[in-house]
């Protein structure tokens, strides 16, 4: 089930890309270096909408933690927000 409606701060979602590709890997379309792969937004990651970009394209900015434990903020294409993020399970 994809995310519906407009994102708002505090919304939580799970990154669930159709093909299972990590966010940067999907954009690149070819393998990325291992040190970059471990910093990528991978399938199954829980994200929280931190804010909406004030400037166009007004995409949601989500907070998440990468595989090595770094706190991250990433702007998410609004089309991908609706197609590649899903509501988290209850209690997440």
């Amino acid at each position: 089930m994809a995310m519906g409606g407009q994102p708002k701060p505090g919304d939580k979602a799970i990154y669930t890309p159709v093909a299972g590709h990590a966010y940067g890997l999907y954009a690149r379309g070819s393998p990325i270096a291992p040190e970059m792969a471990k910093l990528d937004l991978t399938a199954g990651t829980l994200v929280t909408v931190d804010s909406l970009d004030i400037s166009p394209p007004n995409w949601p900015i989500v907070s998440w933690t990468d595989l090595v434990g770094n706190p991250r903020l990433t702007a998410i294409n609004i089309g991908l927000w609706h197609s590649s993020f899903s509501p988290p399970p209850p209690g997440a």
Partner: protein
Amino acid sequence: MLITQGQLHQYAQQQALNAVFLKTQSPTAAPTYLAMSQTAIGSLQSSALTMADATVNEYLTSTGYARQNYTPVAATPASPSSIYNTGIITWGPFTSPPGTANWAIACDVASGTAANIIASFLLGAPVTPATGDSLQGAAGTGAAGVGFICQI
């Protein structure tokens, strides 16, 4: 990456002087953020007040970029006193090439051009992330050139 010591911009200089000489008190505690700027070396002016300044040239969020939380330590009890990040700061992953960055800029809002510029940090070498890459700045230790350190 080696990073030069941060330079306070006009907004922060005024905030600091007004606070320490008890003219007005600074704003309440709040997060600050680090932006990436493509401005050429020598072209970023300390008189630039906000991220709307024509010389800022920040990465675009349409590349997956977003400003990152700076989360610095409290100013050190030393003279000169300094402030710096203690965690690694990572931008990305980028979904298209964001361009070449020469500067990190500390500001007070997560996005938008209304953010006040606090300080700028010149990167030791320009960085040009590719699609799929992330960009990391080292955690500071208080030593010059390590992390994003600003000193008075």
